[in-house]
Structures are given as structure tokens and as C-alpha cells.
């Protein structure tokens, strides 16, 4: 199992803060699976959309592999500072 978290606009519009999902091979696979849910999910996780990903608190690319127990997070471009 992996833990998947959503932040800021994503958390609000998807109405989901965190969920446990089956482990998949990599970020790209996970994003396709989420896009397949349709509606807002399809919009946010469409290919080419500007969305950031982290794995275990480190910024990650779609090609990064996922290991059982990982914490994956999706969020919009950051706006701090």
C-alpha cells in the first residue's frame, strides 16, 4: 500500500486530503490511474497539466519508481515566500 496526499487547490477541488492505494510501478502509472476516475480527476491528472509530485518528501519526476509504504503527494506549483 502507498499513502497518497493532495494539497491546496487539488485537495479542495478533488475533495480528498489523503487516501491509501495499492502500490503501482511508478508515478506515471499512478497518475494515469487517477485520471481514469474521470471528472476533476481527469482534468488535474491529464498529461501535460502543470502538477508537482513528491515521493517521501522529495520532489519527483513521473518516471520515479514507487515502493511499498511510500508517501506520494500531488500539488500545484508552489506560491510561498
Amino acid at each position, binding site marked *: 500500500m502507498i499513502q497518497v*496526499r493532495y*494539497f*491546496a*487547490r487539488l485537495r479542495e477541488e478533488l475533495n480528498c486530503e489523503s487516501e491509501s492505494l495499492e502500490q503501482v510501478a511508478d508515478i506515471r502509472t499512478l497518475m494515469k490511474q487517477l485520471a481514469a476516475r474521470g471528472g476533476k480527476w481527469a482534468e488535474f491528472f491529464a498529461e501535460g497539466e502543470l502538477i508537482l509530485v*513528491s515521493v517521501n*518528501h*522529495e*520532489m519527483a519526476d513521473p518516471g520515479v519508481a514507487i515502493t511499498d509504504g511510500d508517501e506520494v*503527494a500531488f*500539488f*500545484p*506549483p*508552489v*506560491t*510561498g*515566500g
Partner: protein
Amino acid sequence: MSRAVVQSEPLDIARVQDGLRADNPAIGALVSFVGLMRDFNDGDQVSSLFLEHYPGMTEKALDAIIAEAEQRWDLMGVRVIHRVGALKPLDPIVIVVVASAHRGEAFDACEFIIDYLKTRAPFWKKERTGEGERWVDARESDSEAQARWKE
């Protein structure tokens, strides 16, 4: 004391600066950046701001940015304090302080850290205007500012 702190309490700018330079007579230059909440953004009056972040990742991201600055320049001290939660206009949002023997390195490192923070640290601003609440969009200019530092 950690060099990066995320807190909901107001920032005490003077305390951060004084703490960094205290008792080290080898420091010749102290450069500080303070980011302040403006009451106007994208054409609208803004009455308040809520800053969300990703606890656990934020501190790591800030530490990594500071470590990278310390690798590029010869520094004698760095502090980054960022607020989260509810803010109002005039409130300091972030302070970056860099101490060095000479000013050139302190200026470069301070600007590098805030440029990277703006594109790599997981903070998100939601502002309240007369029209309601809205998430602040990332600025293209921030990505460009960060890209300047690529070697």
C-alpha cells in the same frame, strides 16, 4: 537551532538577524530579505491570506536549498523563517538572512535562496478579496528567477 523554521507565530526580524551575527566578529556582511504581505494582487484588494504547507516536506526542502547555497558560496550563517496560517497585509511572510565575510557572497546566496524557495518549497497562498477566496497562481517570473542560477 535549525537553520529553517516554519511557524504560525509572527516573525521577529530583529531577533533572527541578531541571533545570526551574535558573537562572530569574522562576519563582515549580513544580507536580509523580508517578504511582506501586500494588500493588492492581480488587480484586486486583498484583505487576508492563508498559507498552507506540507509539514515534513517543507523543512526538508528548505534545508536542501540552504545546503545548496552553502555549497556554492562561503557562508558564515543562514536562517530561513517562513510563516504559515492566517496573515494580514503588512505581515512579514518570510525572512532569509545570510552572513558572510564579504558582501558579494551574502547578496548572491540570499537571492538564490529566496528564488529557489519560491519554486521548490511546498507553500501555497490562498487570498481573500472582495470577490471571495482564491488560490494564488504561480508566477512565470519566479521560474525565470530560479532558472538564472542554473550552471
